[in-house]
């Protein structure tokens, strides 16, 4: 089929395509609902809203799912800040002159990046928890921070390395020490370049925070599992929880896009 036979895309073919896409999406939803009903699953969507919000004494109260979402956002927020701190330290260690610092950072990165987050969560909760007296919530925060800190450190390191050598040489010739060079010259430029990937880490953290339900921290996923164990509303609740996670991550994605467009650096 040569290119002369293909119609070029215009408004009417675009509308056709969008309509075809909507039809396919509706067909998928219909298939899921009809297919599961034929095999015995009874959809009961009307029972779901009471777990999102309830009316108590005339005003709106948050249901278990929203309380779980608050815990998820709490864990993700604290872990994000802690992972920035750990990541920045690890990046600076990897770029330093000291052999011990480089070796330590390298060991940390290789161990954290090559083991699953689940194993790290269990290790910190069952092994380091009793030893250092860390309780459940902070074991989860620590495990998430260490895990994301490894990836954050690579982002920081790539941002710092991307600054031209001329900046370092100018700082040296002005007599600035290493710390002052980082503080006044390098980091302000580097942070502007890596702000979008850093905010992507926030999205990654919200997704990975779902795993803390395995050590029974009452986040959104755990609340969902508890409600499903009581009511067997399996599919309704898992789709609702997925929709809540999607809403949060898509909002953050929009924020990341906004940052990318408005803080873009002309290199």
């Amino acid at each position, binding site marked *: 089929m040569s290119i002369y036979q293909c119609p070029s895309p215009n408004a009417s073919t675009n509308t056709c395509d969008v309509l075809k896409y909507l039809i396919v999406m509706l067909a998928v939803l219909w298939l899921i609902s009809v297919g599961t009903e034929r095999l015995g699953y009874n959809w009961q969507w009307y029972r779901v809203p009471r777990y999102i919000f309830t009316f108590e004494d005339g005003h709106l109260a948050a249901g278990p799912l929203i309380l779980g979402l608050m815990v998820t956002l709490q864990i993700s927020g604290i872990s994000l800040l802690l992972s920035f701190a750990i990541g920045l330290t690890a990046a600076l260690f990897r770029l330093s002159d000291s052999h011990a610092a480089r070796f330590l950072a390298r060991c940390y990165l290789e*161990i954290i990046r*090559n083991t699953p987050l689940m194993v790290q969560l269990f290790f910190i909760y069952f092994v380091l928890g009793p030893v250092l007296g860390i309780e459940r919530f902070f074991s989860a925060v620590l495990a998430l921070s260490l895990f994301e800190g490894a990836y954050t450190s690579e982002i920081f390191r790539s941002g710092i390395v991307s600054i031209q050598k001329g900046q370092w040489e100018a700082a040296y010739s002005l007599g600035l020490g290493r710390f002052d060079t980082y503080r006044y010259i390098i980091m302000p430029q580097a942070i502007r370049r890596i702000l979008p990937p850093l905010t992507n880490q926030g999205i990654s953290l919200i997704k990975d925070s779902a795993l803390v339900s395995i050590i029974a921290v009452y986040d959104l996923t755990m609340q969902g599992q508890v409600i499903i164990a009581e009511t067997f509303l399996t*599919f309704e609740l898992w789709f609702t929880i997925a929709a809540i996670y999607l809403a949060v991550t898509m909002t953050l994605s929009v924020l990341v896009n906004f940052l990318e467009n408005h803080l873009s650096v002309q290199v």
Partner: protein
Amino acid sequence: MIKVPKITLLDVVIMLVVTGILGYIGYRITVGIHYKWNWSAIPQYLFRIDKNNGGWTANLLLQGLFTTIRLSVWATLLATILGTVAGFFRISKSLFKRLLGRTFVELMRNTPPLVLIFIFYFFVSDQIMSFLGVDDFIRNTSERTQSVITFLFAPPRFFSAFISAAITVAIFEAAYITEIVRAGIQSIEKGQFEACNALGLSWRQQMQYVILPQAIQRILPPLAGQFISTIKDSAIVSVISIPELCFQGMELMAATYLTFECWITITVLYLTLTLSLSLAVERLEIFFRRSTA
């Protein structure tokens, strides 16, 4: 000139702090909580004597390791097929296909893998597996087929759960492979596409003879990295009781209460698996860089 390593202040500080932390942890383990180390109990969970032929065979932990490897291999194969198709959709001329591809990738990449696994696993194993009658089919095959299936996949009584888990992990990984394939194809210079148009090649001929042979070299290293990532993500299926390495670790800990030894062993096993594969991937990248240079 021999380079003498310079000891800086940071070196000294770090060595003191690390020694201090290790010392404190050691003190807390022995004096604080009186943990009794029992490393001698671990090897029996790695290997055991087979009653039939008297040789060493794998026990719990190594069986879990092999299940992890099988699960990751099958999931990556399925995900590569699905991801390549979705990758072609993402860069298609048709807006319809582009919308479908984008929806798939964004949905899979923005939901937590744990939630996706619960949704897909229940759906695939309850609805699709019983619809296809996989369990009955496996039970009715011969002894020899069952031993082949056990080696490639899982023992017949776990077969349906294993396949459901593999499909679930594959759907989730396919979203990342879609982006790898898309980036690989889009990295081919536009001149190649224009030359194919000028020669009058159809889309299939263009992909088969010109674009894919070049794109595959750029796609393989990230794809291998994604395989290593799949090994780590396969740990999540332990929440649905697939007997892979992390699940066996939890069982071991519940049975023996040797928490420290158990989790240190599991971590070391995962590290050996992924670090050796990472080295192999580095060799692969060097080989490709040499052959294109």
